[in-house]
C-alpha cells in the first residue's frame, strides 16, 4: 500500500475507522443520551467531508486500479456526505419520538455511507460488488429498525430479499463479464471489448449488471419493492435511503457503463431509453392514485429515477456525454435536496403507529403552520419542475441535454409526465391550503433546521445555479 493508495481512500478510511470506534463508544453512552452518538456520527461525517473537500481537483487511481479518485467521485462523495448529515438531522428527534433511539442507528448509517462512497470510487467490478453489499446490508437492518413493528419488519425482509436477488444479478453479471474479457477492471473490460472480444457473453453480463443497478435505483420494472419498503421503513430511514442509495446506485451505473461498456452502447442505449421512458410513465401514473404520503413520495422517487436515467441514455456518445453527466449530477443534487425537505415535512406530521401519513391529514396545514406549508409547497413545485425552484432548473438542464443528444422523444415523454406529476403533487398543496383541518406537528429543532435549509436552498439556488452548473460540469471522469 503506497501513499497514493492511502490518499485516494483517505476520507473513506477515516469514516470506516470512525464508525468502528463509534460502535464501541456507543456501548458506554447511557440509553437516554443517545443524542451524543448522533452528534459523534455527525462529527465523523463532517470530518470526512473536510477530507473529501481537500481532494477536490485531485485525480488518481490506487490499489492497482481497483479504486479511483476524480472529479466525479469527489462530487458524489460530497453529495453523499451532506445527505448523511441531513439524514442524521431528520432522524435525531424522530427515532427518539418513535422509541427506537438505539445507538446502532447512526453507526449503521455511517457504514452504509462508506459503502456509497466506495461505490463512487470503484474502478473494478469486484469493488462495485463489495460497495454494493456494504451499502445495502446496513440499510436492510435500518429498514427493519422499528421492530417489533410489523410493517417495518416486513419492509426489512422485503428489501433484504429483493436486494439480495439484485445483488445476485450483479455477481452473475460480473462473472459473465469476467468470462468474456478475463478481467474485472473497468479499463480492462473496455480494452478487451473494443478489441472485439466475443460480445454476446459480454452483452448478457452488462444486461445483468443493469438489472442489478436497476433494482438499487428503483427503475421500472425493477421497482416493485420500493413503495412497500419506503412505506414500512421508519420515515427517517426512507428519507436517507431514497436519496443516498439512489445517488450511489446512479454513480455506479454511470461509471460502469460509461467507462467499461461504451462499445455496447448501440444495444444498451435502446434498453436505457426504454427503461427511462417506462420509469417516468409508470412512476408518475401510479403515483396519481396514492392516498398515503409515503407511498406517494415513493412513486415520486421512482419517477425521478426515470428523469435521472434520461441523462444516461447517450452514454456511448463521447460528444454529448459530458453535458449529460453534468445534467444528471445536477438533477441528482436538486432531487436530493427536494427529497430531504419533503420527507422532513412528512416526519414533522407523522404520529406514532403510522398515523398522520394520509394526504388528507395535511388538510388545514397552511392556516396553522404557514411556514411548514410553504416549505412543502416549495418542494412540490420543485418536484413538478416549476419556477422558482431548483427542480425547474434541473429539468431544464436535463431536457436540454436529452434534446442535444438527439433524444427529443424522451424529452417529450419527460415533459408530459411532468404534467401528470403536477396533478398529484398539487393534491398535497390543495389539501394544505384549500381544505379545512386541524393537523398537529412535532417541533424538533434539527428537523426544522433541515426542512428550512432545504427549502431555502431549493429556492435560492434556482436564482444562482451557476456555480452548481460549474461544479457538475467539471465532475467528469
Amino acid at each position: 500500500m503506497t501513499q497514493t493508495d492511502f490518499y485516494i481512500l483517505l476520507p473513506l478510511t477515516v469514516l470506516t475507522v470512525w464508525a468502528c470506534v463509534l460502535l464501541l463508544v456507543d456501548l458506554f453512552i447511557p440509553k437516554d443520551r443517545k443524542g451524543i452518538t448522533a452528534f459523534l456520527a455527525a462529527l465523523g461525517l463532517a470530518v470526512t467531508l473536510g477530507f473529501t473537500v481537500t481532494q477536490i481537483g485531485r485525480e488518481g487511481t490506487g490499489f492497482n486500479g481497483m479504486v479511483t479518485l476524480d472529479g466525479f467521485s469527489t462530487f458524489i462523495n460530497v453529495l453523499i456526505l451532506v445527505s448523511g448529515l441531513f439524514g442524521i438531522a431528520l432522524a435525531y428527534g424522530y427515532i427518539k419520538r418513535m422509541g427506537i433511539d438505539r445507538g446502532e442507528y447512526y453507526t449503521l448509517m455511517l457504514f452504509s455511507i462508506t459503502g456509497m462512497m466506495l461505490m463512487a470510487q470503484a474502478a473494478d467490478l469486484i469493488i462495485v460488488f463489495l460497495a454494493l453489499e456494504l451499502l445495502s446490508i446496513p440499510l436492510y437492518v435500518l429498514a427493519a429498525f422499528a421492530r417489533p413493528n410489523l410493517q417495518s419488519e416486513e419492509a426489512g425482509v422485503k428489501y433484504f430479499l429483493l436486494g439480495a436477488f439484485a445483488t445476485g444479478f450483479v455477481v452473475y453479471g460480473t462473472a459473465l463479464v469476467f468470462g468474456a474479457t478475463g478481467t474485472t477492471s473497468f479499463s480492462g473490460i473496455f480494452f478487451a471489448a473494443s478489441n472485439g472480444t466475443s460480445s454476446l457473453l459480454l452483452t448478457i453480463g452488462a444486461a445483468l449488471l443493469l438489472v442489478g443497478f436497476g433494482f438499487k435505483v428503483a427503475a421500472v420494472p425493477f421497482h416493485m419493492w420500493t413503495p412497500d419498503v419506503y412505506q414500512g421503513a421508519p420515515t427517517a430511514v426512507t428519507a436517507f435511503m431514497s436519496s443516498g442509495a439512489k445517488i450511489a446506485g446512479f454513480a455506479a451505473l454511470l461509471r460502469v457503463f460509461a467507462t467499461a461498456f461504451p462499445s455496447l452502447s448501440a444495444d444498451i442505449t435502446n434498453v436505457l431509453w426504454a427503461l427511462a421512458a417506462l420509469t417516468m410513465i409508470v412512476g408518475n401514473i401510479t403515483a396519481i392514485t396514492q392516498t398515503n404520503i409515503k407511498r406517494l413520495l415513493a412513486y415520486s422517487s421512482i419517477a425521478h429515477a426515470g428523469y435521472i436515467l434520461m441523462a444516461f441514455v447517450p452514454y456511448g456518445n463521447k460528444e454529448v456525454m459530458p453535458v449529460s453527466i453534468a445534467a444528471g449530477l445536477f438533477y441528482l443534487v436538486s432531487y436530493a435536496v427536494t427529497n430531504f425537505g419533503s420527507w422532513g415535512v412528512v416526519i414533522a406530521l407523522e404520529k406514532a403507529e403510522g398515523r398522520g401519513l394520509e394526504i388528507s391529514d395535511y388538510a388545514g396545514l397552511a392556516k396553522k403552520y404557514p411556514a411548514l406549508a410553504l416549505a412543502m409547497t416549495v418542494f412540490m413545485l420543485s418536484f413538478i419542475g416549476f419556477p422558482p425552484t431548483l427542480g425547474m432548473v434541473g429539468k431544464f438542464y436535463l431536457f436540454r441535454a436529452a434534446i442535444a443528444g438527439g433524444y427529443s422523444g424522451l424529452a417529450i415523454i419527460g415533459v408530459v409526465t411532468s404534467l401528470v406529476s403536477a396533478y398529484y403533487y398539487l393534491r398535497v398543496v390543495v389539501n394544505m391550503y384549500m381544505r379545512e383541518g386541524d393537523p398537529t406537528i412535532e417541533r424538533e429543532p434539527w428537523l426544522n433546521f433541515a426542512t428550512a435549509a432545504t427549502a431555502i436552498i431549493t429556492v435560492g439556488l434556482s436564482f444562482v445555479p451557476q456555480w452548481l452548473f460549474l461544479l457538475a460540469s467539471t465532475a467528469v471522469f
Partner: protein
Amino acid sequence: MEFILQPLTLLTFFPLVGVLVILFMNSEWKNAIRWVALVTSLITFGISLWVLAQFTASNPDLQLEAKYAWIHVAGWNIYYYLAVDGLSILLVLLTAFLTPISILSTWTAVEDRVKDFMIFFLLLEVGMTGVFLAQDLFMFYIFWEFTLVPMYFLIGLWGGPRRIYAAIKFFLYTMAGSILMLVAILFLGIKTDTFNVPTMLVRLPDLYASGIIDPKTQMLLFIAFAAAFAIKVPMWPLHSWLPDAHVEAPTAGSVILAGVLLKMGTYGFLRFNLSLFPNATIQAAPWIALLATIGIIYGAAVSYAQADVKKLVAYSSVSHLGFVMLGMFALNAQGVSGAILQMINHGLSTGALFLLVGMVYEQTHTREIKVYGGLWKVMPVFGTIMLISSLSSMGLPGLNGFVGEFTILLGAFGSKAIGSPWYAGISAIGVIMAAVYILYMFQKMFLGPAGEITQHHELKDLNWREILTVAPLLIFMFWIGLYPAPFFNLIAPAVEKLLSALPL
C-alpha cells in the same frame, strides 16, 4: 447598484418590496396590509409612467435594455435581459395600471387571509410584468410559468364553490401548453446556441436558409409555441378552462385574468411566433384566422346562452380575443396594430365589467341574470357606468372597442396572408352578436320591472371607493375611443419593423 436602478428592473421587481413588508406584518392588520399593497402597486404604476417617459415612440427597437450575463458557465448562455418596445409598452402599462385597480376592488370583498391575498397578488404582478419584458427565452419561461402559481392560489383560496376544481384545471391546462413550448425553447436554444431572442433572430435566418432547421421542423416549433399561447389566449377549441377559472375566481382575480393573463398569450404570438418562425407564420395564418373566426362566433353565441352574468362576460372574452388573433394574423400594419390596441381595450372594458359584476355580487351574492331587473332605478350610477362599459365592450363608435375592432376588420379584409375576405366578413357578424348578448344582459338586469333581488334587497349604489376604482378605466375608454392616435403612435414603428421581417 447599477443593476437595480435600471428602470425595467425596478418596474418588474418593485412589488417584491411590498411583499417583503407585508410578510413581516401581523395578519390581523388587514387595513394596513391593504394600504401597503395599494401603495406598492401605485408606486409600480408610477415607475411604469417613468418608463413611458423615457421610451422613444419613434424607435422601433428594444429600448431601456437591462442586460447582464446571468448563467454563463458550462455551455450555458443565459442572460438577465429585460427590454421594452412598441409591442410590449402598452401591455406593461396596462399591467401596472390594472393591478392597483384590482387591489382597490378587494377592499371589502376579501376579508379572509388578506395578507396571503396581497402577497400572491403582488407576486403575480412581478410575473406578468416579467413576461412582457423578458427578452431571454429562459427568463421568459420562468416568468411565464411562475404566473401560474399565484393565480392558482388566488382561484383556489378565494374562489367560489368549485374553486379547487377550477384552480387545478387552470393550472394543468396552462401547464400542458407550456411544456411543449419548453421543448421547443430548448431545441431553439441548442440550435442557435443562445436563449437571447434578439441574437436568436440574427442567427435563425441562416439556419432556415441552410436547411439545418427544415420547414417542417419550423412548423413543429411554431405549433409548440402556439400551443402554449393558444391555451392562454384562449383560442377555440382550447378555451374550456376559461369559464371555470373566471366564474370561480374572486373579482380581482378575474380582472387580472381577463385583463392581463390572457394577453400574455396574444403577446406571446406577437413577440415570438411571428418573429421566430416567419415562414410557418405565413403558412399558418389562414388556419389561425379560421380558428379565430370560429372563436368569435362561438364565443358570442355561447355568451348569449348564459344565465350567469360572469360566465357571459367570460365567454365574451373568447369572442373578443378571437378578434385580436384575427387581426394579428392578418399580418399587415392595420391588423397587427389593431390587435395590440384591442388587447388593451379588452383589458379595460372586460376588466370594468368584471369589477362591476363583482360589486353587485358583493351585495347580493348571486350572479344570475334573471333574478335582477330594474336595477337602474335603484342604482343609477352603477347603471350608467355599466352601460358605458357594456357599450365599450360591444364596440360602439366613440368608445375604445370600436377603434380596435374596426382596425382589425379593416386589416383582415385586405390581408394577403389570410387570403380571403370571408373571415373578416363572418367576423363582422360577431360584432353584431356582441351587441345582442350585451344589450340582452343589460336589458334583463337594469331595465324592465324590478326583479326578485331588486325588490327584496336593500341595494346601495356605488360608494366613492367603488367609483374611484372604475373611473380610471372609463377615462381610457373615452380617450382611446375619441383620440387613439397617441396609442397607435407608440405601437406603429415596432409593428412596421416586425412585419418588414416577414417574407410576405
